[in-house]
Structures are given as structure tokens and as C-alpha cells.
């Protein structure tokens, strides 16, 4: 008797899972998106999702693509490694999306890329800058610049300011941070500079006094911190407390809504490279800023702009290809030339990357301030 009860239990559970799957309308084009909507890098995911969603809405309002409406299926990877692989597998096999948009963080894109490649589903990353992402295969694209360029930009900037001795504080948990630190150091040394100290931390750490103490003792002119905004803010605060007066330098990982909220005035005098500035006076940018502000009640940041551009490029490619079939769509995306994106003119090159200028932003009195644009 007992045994059959248990078997019954297991059977019922199994049946429940093998239950009726939700039916999707067939006259829709399904596009998958995986992003960090919650967790330590939630700002990335929420911004890029906002941009992407706004683009999809605009496209649908204008009649959709190829006569059908676009349906965006978004999954949250909770800023955790290991999740992107699972959700992208689900998006592809269960939701049957024709393309995947994501992710901002390079480490997460690296996880999902082999899966998209194997299934011949095109993937467009809005903001992953580590070069290895598009090396995974010819179905993987990105609409932003890559870290060899970004690292060199910051190295040259440091050189220009006369900062020859730079210490580097890397987040060893993020492929992005490790890669960018590498490229920066190469650029720095090539320009005659010297790396005074290399220290590490992990995403999620709260206390950096030990690393900063060691860095301070090496007497650098500046500190390169190619990490994500959550930790960078804390690092800046603690650096100030420890009496470190030199500026911090960083990359596009600094772009997060809580950066200035948490750091306060600790980041004054620091600089970072990114993709876009809301102060850019080009009409296409100002239009976007107005629309975004009206819809979401806040100013858009890089990730929002890139999210928007990635969706638009996908739609344009679909229209050009005349179909959503994998190989044809892939070819169409690869042929994108001079697309008038929010973040600049986007041309997808032979390595499936976009060659675009970088924007250097400074922080003055707790506010972002545009410094200069650096062309590739």
C-alpha cells in the first residue's frame, strides 16, 4: 500500500510538469532576451531591457516586422553565473525564439554564446566588450566596441594626463574585468607607463581596505578599476577613507544607477570610458532621450541605448532578409552597414563587432560630465 502511494505521488508530479504548455500565437515573431534584472548587476539588465522593450514597442506600433508583431520573451539570469546557459537553452528549445538578445556582462555572454551557436540561432549582445564573445562562432554579434580598443583608450587617456604609474584592481570573477585590465596594462606599458601594483577582488566583496592599503603603498598616479559599478562605488569610498588622493579610472562597467548614489563625492575627479552620453546633441540621441524619459521617468544610460540599438538592428536585418530563418537572418545581421544607432553609426565588421567611438566621461561634483569622444 505504502509503495503505491509513493509511486502515485511521483507520477502526479511528473504529469504536472508534462502538462499543457502555454500556446503562443503563430503570427508573432518571438525574440528572446536574457538579462540581469535582479541581483548585483541589476542596473545593467534593467537598462538594457528598458531600451530593448522600448524598441520592440515602437516597431510593433509601426506595424511590426515582415507583417507580424514582435514578441519579446525576457528571462532574468539574476546576475548569477550558470543561469544564462540554462535560460538560453530554455528560450531556444521551449520558447522557440528566432534570435537572442543579450547579455551586457561578457562572462554571461560567453556562457550563452556556444549554445546559440550550436543551435544556429543568431545572438546579438548589446554591450559585451570582451573579444572572446564573438569568437565563439559566426552566429554571435555585438553592437558595441571591444576591449582591446577600450583598454587602449583609457591607457592613452592616462598617458595624456601624465599618469605614468598606475595600479590595477581587477575583479577576478568577471571575464570582462580580467580582459579589460589586461588590455589596459598592455596599452599602458606600450606608452611608456608602469603598473605599480596588481590587486584583485571578487564581485560581491564589500571590503577592499587590504587591497587598497597595498595599492596605496605602491604610490601610483592613478588606479585603474575595470569593475562593475556596485563594487567600484565601495572601492572609491574606501580609497578616500584610506587617504588615497589619486583619481580612479574605469570602463563601461561603471555605468550603473547606484554608482554615484553610493559613492557620493568619492568619485570626483575620476574618469571612465563608455558608449554614449545623454548630453550628445545629435537629434537622434536627443529624441531617444526624450522618449525614454517620457516612458520610464529617468534618463537613459549606455545600456539602454545599446539595448535599443541591438533590437533595432535585429529588426532591420529581419526586414532585409525577408525571413527569420537562422542562416539568412545571420547573413543579414552580418551585412549591417551604417545603421543610424543611438550610440553611433553601427557597421558590423568581419569579426562581427561594431567599430565605434568611445566616450570618456568624468565625474565632477557628483555629476557625470562629458570629456571627449575617441574615435577608433
Amino acid at each position, binding site marked *: 500500500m505504502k509503495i503505491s502511494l509513493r509511486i502515485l*505521488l511521483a507520477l502526479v508530479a*511528473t504529469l504536472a*510538469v508534462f*502538462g499543457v504548455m502555454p500556446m503562443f500565437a503563430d503570427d508573432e515573431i518571438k525574440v528572446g532576451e536574457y538579462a540581469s534584472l535582479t541581483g548585483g548587476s541589476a542596473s545593467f539588465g534593467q537598462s538594457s531591457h528598458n531600451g530593448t522593450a522600448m524598441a520592440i514597442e515602437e516597431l510593433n506600433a509601426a506595424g511590426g516586422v515582415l507583417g507580424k508583431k514582435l514578441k519579446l520573451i525576457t528571462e532574468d539570469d539574476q546576475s548569477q553565473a*550558470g543561469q544564462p546557459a540554462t535560460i538560453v*537553452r530554455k528560450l531556444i*528549445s521551449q520558447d522557440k525564439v528566432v534570435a537572442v538578445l543579450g547579455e551586457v556582462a561578457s562572462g554571461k555572454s*560567453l556562457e550563452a554564446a556556444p549554445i546559440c551557436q550550436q543551435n544556429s540561432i543568431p545572438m546579438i549582445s548589446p554591450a559585451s566588450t570582451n573579444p572572446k564573445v564573438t569568437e565563439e562562432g559566426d552566429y554571435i554579434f555585438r553592437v558595441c566596441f571591444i576591449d582591446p580598443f577600450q583598454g587602449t583608450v583609457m591607457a592613452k587617456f592616462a598617458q595624456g594626463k601624465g599618469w605614468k604609474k598606475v595600479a590595477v584592481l581587477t575583479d577576478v570573477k568577471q*571575464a570582462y574585468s580580467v580582459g579589460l585590465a589586461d588590455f589596459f596594462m598592455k596599452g599602458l606599458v606600450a606608452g611608456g607607463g608602469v603598473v605599480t601594483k596588481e590587486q584583485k577582488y571578487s564581485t560581491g566583496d564589500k571590503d577592499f581596505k587590504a587591497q587598497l592599503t597595498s595599492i596605496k603603498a605602491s604610490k601610483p598616479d592613478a588606479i585603474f578599476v575595470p569593475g562593475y559599478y556596485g563594487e567600484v562605488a565601495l572601492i572609491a569610498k574606501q580609497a578616500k577613507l584610506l587617504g588615497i588622493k589619486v583619481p580612479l579610472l574605469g570602463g563601461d562597467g561603471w555605468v550603473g544607477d547606484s554608482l554615484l548614489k553610493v559613492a557620493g563625492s568619492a568619485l570626483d575627479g575620476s574618469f571612465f570610458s563608455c558608449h554614449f552620453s545623454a548630453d550628445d546633441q545629435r537629434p537622434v540621441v536627443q529624441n531617444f532621450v526624450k522618449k525614454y524619459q517620457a516612458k520610464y521617468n529617468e534618463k537613459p544610460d549606455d545600456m539602454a541605448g545599446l539595448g535599443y540599438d541591438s533590437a533595432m538592428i535585429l529588426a532591420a536585418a529581419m526586414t532585409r532578409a525577408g525571413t527569420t530563418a537562422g542562416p539568412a537572418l545571420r547573413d543579414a545581421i552580418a551585412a549591417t552597414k551604417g545603421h543610424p544607432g543611438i550610440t553611433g553609426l553601427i557597421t558590423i565588421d568581419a569579426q562581427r563587432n561594431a567599430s565605434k567611438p568611445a566616450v570618456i566621461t568624468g565625474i565632477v561634483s557628483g555629476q557625470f560630465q562629458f570629456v571627449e569622444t575617441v574615435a577608433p
Partner: protein
Amino acid sequence: MGARGNYLLLGVLTLCGVASPWVGGISPYYFDILIGIGINIILAVSLNLVNGYTGQFSLGHAGFMAVGAYLGSALSLVVKFPYVSIPEWTGNVLWWIPKLLWLIVAMVVNAGVSVHNGLAVGVEQLPHGAQFLIVLMYGGMGAAFAGLLVGIPSLRLRGDYLAIVTLGFNEIIKGLIQNCEPLGAQLGLNGIPEWTNFFWTFGFAVVTIFVVLHLVHSTYGRGFLAVRDDEIAAEAMGIHTTKYKVLAFVIGAFFAGIAGGLFAHFKQHIDPEAFGYLRSVDIVVMVILGGMGNTAGVVFAAILLTILPELLRKVAHYEWLPDWLQQVAENRMILYSLLLIILMLTRPQGLFGNFLGKGTLRKS
């Protein structure tokens, strides 16, 4: 059991093998769940041997899984470890003792590295099936060795202390991996070949259950149970409690390593975070839910708890549920923890009761 049991095992394995290609064809989503079930069964049953039958509360099972996953992947990805060289400073120190010590350590480690590198290259040449078997065995043996290293210091410890030490070993294993560049350090390993299929997973699940059941119904089993019920009395009766405790750890770790190898070649990406304290707790919950010391119960608990998060994910998407309930469904940890608390308060022997009516936990 006996000869009939062996034939039964062979029969089931053949069935798995035959069914495998067909099962591989079903929707990838359900396939994923099925493989997940198989892996969890292996993990839960192997932990049950340590926690349930031998009464050693181990909170570090995920560490053994990690060893198996990483060693197995190191082989299939042909990761070649670099050789250890004697550091410079030993030359500066006057004593020859540090240099000698380092020399010995370096020799041993380099011998191991040579074996591994040779094996990695050699295994590449083999046909697929043999490759995976060797990869899994390699991972399992490595994990078993780790089990030995963990089991021995833990011998003198009881209850709470043992729990925290096994937890500590889990963290140490994680820490070692996080600092090992060839193993991907904190970034993890990507692109592991997708070799896991129905046959391998359920084949090993069946083997695990078979081995554990056989072990428990033999004289070894009496030894395990004796250690669990009253260690001092067992010692007094002449039972080598050391031997049984270490044996339980080693065998449990071996199968956890196999599960790790299967996991790595299924997810195609592994990183140290996946094998932390929370994963260990996941497995412990399965063992407790099933009834510590009850293999059949533990198997069902593993199936149930693998399906539950997926069910909850579906439920979370139902639009008609109030928001907060949706969120609770999304967050399976809330339900897991509540389950643990309620279970301990009302029915500590788990859903399915104890082995032979007695067990580690019972309502006094």
C-alpha cells in the same frame, strides 16, 4: 539480491542504453529535467550513505561533486596542467630543508601532472563512449581521493563540528579551484562537450542505487549502522569505526564525483559558485525529505525536488496569481527552507520514514 539482482542490473542498464537515443529526441526542456533528476538521484543516494546510514552529518557533498566535475572536464577539454617548479626563494635560504621539502612536493605533484597530461592526450584518441567512461571514472576517483582526505581528519569529530568541518572542506575545494588558472579560476570552464545522455545518467543512477543497497545489506552495512547508532558501543564490540566512516566518505564522494562529471558535460559550463554551501544544502534537503537512511525514499525525494522548481517556475508565470505569491513561487529557497523547518518540527524522519523503522532522526 544475489545473482538475480545482478541480472536485474544488467537488464536495466541495457534498457537504458536502448531507450537512450529515443529519449534524446524528446523536447530539450524535458530532457534537461530528466537528466537533472538522474544527477540528483546519484547525489542524494550517495550522500544518504554518509549521512543516513553512517550517521556522519556531511555538509560538503558539493565539494566532491566539484572535484569530479572539474577533473572530468580537465580531461575532456584536454587541459594540460603546468609543471611545478621549485620557487626561487628556497635557493636564498641557508637551510637545505625547505629546498628538500619543495623538491619532494614538486616531484610528487609533477608525477601527478605528467599522468594527467598523458591521460588527457591519450584519451583524446579513444572512441566517444570509452572516452566518457574514462572521464567519469577519473572524476570519480579524484573525488574519492578527496573523500579520503576529508574523511580522515573528520574522524574525531561529532555532529555540529563534523558539519562545519565538511562545510570548511567544501569551501577549501572551492577556493583551490578558484585559484587554479588552468581550471578557469573564478571564470569557470566553458564549452565542455555535451556527452551526457539518458543512458549515462540513468545508468549510473541505477548503479549507484545498486551499489549502495548491496553495501548496506551486507556486513559492511551492519558496520555503518553500528557507527550511526552508537559509536562507542560499536568500538566496544570491536568494530573499526574509523574504517567504516572513511569508507562511507570515500564511496559517497566517488559517486558525487561521477554526478559532477555528468553535470559538467550536460550544462557545458561550470564555475566554482555552482558547488558551494547552497548546493550541499540542496542535496541534504533531499536526503532529509526522503528519510535519512531510506534509499527508496531518497530517490523519490530527489525526483520530487528536481521537478518542484520547474513546476514553481510555471506557476510563477500564471497571471492570475497575486504578485507576491508569484514571487514566492519564483524563489524556491523560501519553500525549501520552510519545508525543512516544518519537516523537522513535525516529521523529522522525512516523508517516507526510516530504514528498518529506526533511523538517525525520529520523533522521540
